[in-house]
C-alpha cells in the first residue's frame, strides 16, 4: 500500500487510541476503551504488514515477523494470565522495560541498516532522534528491571552492589551518558557509537533506580511508563512515523501525570522521590515512646463494636493487598449492610503500592465502586462514624503527618483517628513504608487487632454471625 493510505490508517489508529483513553475516564466505558486501544494496535500492525516497504521482505521476512509475533503473543498471554492481580505493579514494570527495549532495538536496526549504506546517510535531525531513542529506551529497560526486582522482592537483588554516594555517582553517570548521546547525535549515530550509548544508558538506568527505596517504586514505574512512551515517540521521529509519535506522546503524558498525582498525594517533590532519602528525621519520636499506650483487642470485641454501630468506614492499605483480604472484607461489609449498618470505604490516593491499587483489589471482590469514597469525601463524614476499621493501612492514616517536623509532614491522610472508635488490623507494631511510628495506634479511641488481615476479618465475621 502506498504511504498515503498507510498513514491514513495510522491516523485512524491514533484516533482510536485517543478514544480508548477517553473511555478510561469512566468505569462503565473502561473495558470498551481498552478494547479500542487493542483494535487500534491491531489496525496499525496489520496495515504495516502490507506497507510497501515490508512487502518486499519476501517469504523469509514474513516468516520472521510472524514467528516473532507468535513468540511474543505466547509469552504475553502467559504472563497476563498467570499473574495474580496483587502483583500487577511488577508486571507493569516488566512490560515497561520490554517496551523500552523494543524502542532502542528498532532505533539500533535503523542505525545499522543506514550506517552501512554510506557516510552521512543519516540526517542530523534523525540522528538526534536515534540518540534519544537509545538513551531513553535503555534507561527504561534497566530501570524497569530494577523496579521489577525490587517489587517482586527478588533474591538476586540482595546480591547486587549498592552504590555509595549515589547522588554523586548518578550525577556523573547522567552527565557522561548525556554527553555520549550528544556525541552520538552529532556524529550521526554511527553504529558503534550508538551501542556504546545504549550500554552507558543501561548502566544509568540501573544507577538511577537501585538506590530508590522499594516503596517509592510505584512513582518510579509511572515515570518509566512515561519514558517508555517517550522512547516510542523518539523512535517515531527516527522512522518519521506519526502513529508512533502520537501513541508514544499519549503514554508519555499519562505517565507524567500519574507521577505528579502520586507525588502530590505523598506531598513530596519528584526530585525528593528520585534522589532524596525518606526515613525518620532527627525529630522523629522513638517507637517505644509513642507506643506506651497501645490497647490490643480481639475479634469478639470488634464484633460487638460493629454490632452496635450505625456507620462503619473501612480503610484498606497495603496490608490488605499482602493478606489478600479483599474477599473477606467484602463478606464482612455485606453482612453489616444486611443488618442495616451504613458501610463505606475510604480510599487514600496512595494506599497500597500503586495508584488505584485498592480500587482494583476491591473491584476484584465485586464491591460496588459507589461505596469507594475518595479521601476528601470520607474525611468530611469521619466524625459521624462509629467504627473506622483500618485494614493493613499505616502511613495513610498516620496523624503524625499533621505535625510539621514529621518525615511525612504535609502528606494528606484519612482521618481515621477522628472516628468514635478506630480498630486497626495489622500483624505487629512494625512501621509501614515510611518507616516511622504511628501515634494512631496508641490513641485513646484506638484498638489494635494483631493478626493477618484476612484471618482477622474472617474471625470478626464469624464472631458476628455467632453473636
Amino acid at each position, binding site marked *: 500500500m502506498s504511504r498515503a493510505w498507510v498513514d491514513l490508517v495510522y491516523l485512524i489508529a491514533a484516533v482510536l487510541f485517543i478514544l480508548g483513553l477517553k473511555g*478510561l475516564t469512566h468505569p462503565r466505558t473502561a473495558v470498551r476503551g481498552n478494547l479500542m486501544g487493542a483494535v487500534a494496535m491491531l489496525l496499525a500492525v496489520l496495515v504495516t504488514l502490507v506497507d510497501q516497504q515490508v512487502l518486499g521482505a519476501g517469504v523469509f521476512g514474513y516468516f520472521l*515477523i510472524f514467528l516473532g509475533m507468535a513468540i511474543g503473543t505466547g509469552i504475553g498471554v502467559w504472563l497476563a494470565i498467570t499473574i495474580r492481580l496483587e502483583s500487577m505493579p511488577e508486571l507493569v514494570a516488566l512490560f515497561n522495560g520490554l517496551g523500552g527495549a523494543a524502542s532502542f532495538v528498532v532505533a539500533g536496526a535503523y542505525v545499522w541498516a543506514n550506517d552501512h549504506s554510506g557516510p552521512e546517510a543519516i540526517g542530523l535531525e534523525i540522528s538526534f532522534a536515534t540518540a534519544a531513542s537509545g538513551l531513553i529506551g535503555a534507561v527504561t529497560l534497566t530501570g524497569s528491571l530494577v523496579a521489577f526486582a525490587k517489587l517482586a522482592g527478588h533474591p538476586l537483588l540482595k546480591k547486587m552492589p549498592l552504590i555509595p554516594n549515589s547522588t554523586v555517582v548518578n550525577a556523573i553517570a547522567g552527565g557522561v551518558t548525556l554527553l555520549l548521546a550528544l556525541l552520538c547525535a552529532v556524529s550521526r549515530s554511527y553504529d558503534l557509537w550508538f551501542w556504546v550509548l545504549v550500554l552507558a544508558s543501561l548502566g544509568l538506568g540501573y544507577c538511577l533506580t537501585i538506590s530508590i527505596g522499594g516503596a517509592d517504586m510505584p512513582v518510579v514505574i509511572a515515570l518509566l511508563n512515561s519514558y517508555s512512551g517517550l522512547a516510542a515517540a523518539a523512535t517515531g521521529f527516527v522512522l518519521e512515523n506519526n502513529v508512533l509519535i502520537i501513541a508514544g506522546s499519549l503514554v508519555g503524558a499519562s505517565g507524567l501525570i500519574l507521577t505528579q498525582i502520586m507525588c502530590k498525594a505523598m506531598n513530596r517533590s519528584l526530585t525528593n522521590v528520585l534522589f532524596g532519602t525518606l526515613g525518620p528525621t532527627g525529630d522523629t519520636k522513638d517507637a517505644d515512646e509513642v507506643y506506651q499506650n497501645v490497647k490490643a483487642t480481639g475479634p469478639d470485641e470488634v464484633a460487638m463494636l460493629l454490632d452496635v454501630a450505625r456507620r462503619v468506614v473501612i480503610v484498606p492499605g497495603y496490608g490488605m493487598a499482602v493478606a489478600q483480604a479483599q474477599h473477606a472484607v467484602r463478606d464482612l461489609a455485606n453482612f453489616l449492610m444486611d443488618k442495616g449498618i451504613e458501610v463505606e470505604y475510604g480510599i487514600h490516593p496512595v494506599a497500597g503500592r*500503586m*495508584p488505584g491499587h485498592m480500587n482494583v483489589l476491591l473491584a476484584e471482590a465485586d464491591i460496588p465502586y459507589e461505596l469507594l469514597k475518595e479521601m476528601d469525601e470520607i474525611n468530611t463524614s469521619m466524625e459521624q462514624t462509629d467504627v473506622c476499621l483500618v485494614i493493613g493501612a499505616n502511613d495513610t492514616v498516620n496523624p503524625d503527618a499533621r505535625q510539621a517536623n514529621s518525615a511525612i509532614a504535609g502528606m494528606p491522610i484519612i482521618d481515621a483517628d477522628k472516628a468514635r472508635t478506630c480498630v486497626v488490623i495489622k500483624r505487629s507494631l512494625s512501621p509501614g513504608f515510611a518507616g516511622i511510628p504511628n501515634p494512631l495506634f496508641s490513641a485513646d479511641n484506638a484498638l489494635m487487632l494483631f493478626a493477618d488481615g484476612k484471618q482477622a476479618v474472617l474471625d470478626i465475621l464469624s464472631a458476628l454471625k455467632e453473636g
Partner: protein
Amino acid sequence: MFYALHLLAASTAANPLVLGLTIFALAIFVGIEIITKIPPTLHTPLMSGSNAISGITLVGAVLASGEYPGFAKLLGFIAIILATINVVGGFLVTHRMLEKFKSR
C-alpha cells in the same frame, strides 16, 4: 506575464522534524487533557493500559524486520518479540482488571 509561480506550499517542502514536533506537541496536550480526567479508581488500569499502548514500537519493529537486511533484520525480529509481549500482555492484563470493574 506572471513570474514563475510554484504552488505556495509545495515550493519549499515541509521539514519532517518540525512536523513531527507539531504532532508531538498536540498529542502531548491531548494526553494531558484526557488523563487528568481519569478518576483515581482507574489509575492502575490506566497505567497498564497506557503501557500496552507504548508497545506501538511493534509497528517500527515490523518495518525494520521487513525492510532491513542482515543483522538489522535480526534486531527487528528481537524487537518484534519484545514489543509483542508488551502489547499483548498489557492489553490482556488491563482487560482482566477492567472486567472486575464492569461487573456492575
